[in-house]
């Protein structure tokens, strides 16, 4: 047998620390009122069905899949807005890189407008910006993409609530029970601390985990600023013993 086990491909996962995640019902975020289950989740260890998961290595990504500045361009014109490289490492709770996993992202344009038929915000659409892309992490767990900085936008919740600039992320890992959706915010943005959706995360240290850091070192000179956003997925419990478990 192979001595290398992908995280989550075998063995069990650490139990999810549900107190670290937002509870289902968060009154400050009104959409949870009728959508939050009222029964508590039934806690069970994962079975083979949850310890396995889809893999995406066989799919060939298009050259522009991780370039939101150009992947929706209608006429070759690049998207309008402040140019960014967003990158980071996908890790597990044991601080081990999660290679070859699919990371998807979507966001509003520079004015804070989503390209969606139900979106009614008056900020203008950019004809050359779709607002979505994807990447697969490399052997060291790194992903990266080019985009423009999303604008803040108002939304119907309280009387005058605004979302801070953010990018939505979907990450797979290697086990279906590692599946995660989250949002990334930008270092230094005062709007973060006023947002009811950010506020669903109970712990300030948890919120800090959602804030990408400006990375001057990886700036593309005369082109784009860089932000780093690392993502941590659930980890396997038996890390220290994997070679012996698997090899003898």
């Amino acid at each position, binding site marked *: 047998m192979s001595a290398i086990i992908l995280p989550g*491909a075998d063995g069990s996962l650490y139990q*999810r*620390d549900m107190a*670290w995640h*937002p*509870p289902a019902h968060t009154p400050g*975020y009104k*959409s*949870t009122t*009728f*959508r*939050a*289950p*009222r*029964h508590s*989740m*039934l*806690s*069970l*260890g994962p079975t*083979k*069905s949850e310890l396995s*998961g*889809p893999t*995406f*290595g*066989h*799919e060939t990504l*298009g050259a522009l*899949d991780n370039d939101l500045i150009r*992947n*929706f361009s209608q006429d070759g014109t690049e998207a309008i807005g402040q140019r960014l490289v967003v990158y980071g490492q996908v890790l597990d*709770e*044991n*601080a081990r890189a999660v290679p*070859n996993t*699919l990371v*998807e992202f*979507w966001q509003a344009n520079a004015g804070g407008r989503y390209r969606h038929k139900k*979106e009614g915000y008056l900020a203008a659409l950019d004809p050359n910006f*779709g*607002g*979505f*892309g*994807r990447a697969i992490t490399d052997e060291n767990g790194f992903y990266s993409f080019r985009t423009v900085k999303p604008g803040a936008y108002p939304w119907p919740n309280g009387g005058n609530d605004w979302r801070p600039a953010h990018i*939505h992320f979907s990450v797979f890992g290697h086990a*279906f029970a590692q*599946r*995660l*959706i*989250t*949002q990334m915010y930008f270092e230094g943005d005062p709007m973060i601390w006023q947002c009811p959706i*950010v506020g669903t*995360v109970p712990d300030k240290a948890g919120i800090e985990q*959602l804030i990408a850091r400006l990375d001057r070192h990886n700036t593309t000179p005369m082109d784009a600023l860089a932000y780093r956003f690392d*993502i941590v997925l659930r*980890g396997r*419990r038996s890390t*220290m*013993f994997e070679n012996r478990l698997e090899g003898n």
Partner: protein
Amino acid sequence: MLHPTPILKETPSQTAGPYVHIGMTPNFAELRGVYDDPGATMLSEDTKGERIAIVGRVIDGAGAPVADAVIEIWQADAQGSFAGPAARHSNSAPSFTGWGRQAADGDGVFSFQTIKPGAVEGPDGRPQAPHVSLWIVARGINIGLQTRLYFADEAAANEGDYVLNKIMDKRRRQTLIARREEGPVPRYVLDIHLQGEKETVFFDF
């Protein structure tokens, strides 16, 4: 055996928001020409097993459809095996991916074309009843909801299933069992109730 404790905290979940279709099913959201919607097709000509459809609705606690949901499924093949990682640099797709993703439509309705899975071994060493894992995200859902679909015509297997038997209130087990409707392709129908009297059982696996 010693269990090491985790040294990093998992990144906190955040809601997928109202525009999750843009990022996860862009063609469904009418954003075409960039790439195909991942998980739209699970089957190939070579897939072995009984072709079925899995259909249902996602409904909130007020009885309203959850039109901005995305539903993903993950399941074993007809022999009870999961699709393994592809060989490095392989260009061939597996004959059955085991993974599907669909957007809910304006009525909260979703539909998957798949096969009926075989039994997978449970933690107690006995076969689990055939089942499909589901994961649901939408605006107003702060962390992706994990649940399962079981098959009404597998009553005996369901009776002995490891996970179903962990649900103490037996009446609530019914929230996971899809009824079968015959047709050219048999349909298994299961509604997901986020809240209310028929609230689906959700798991923290």
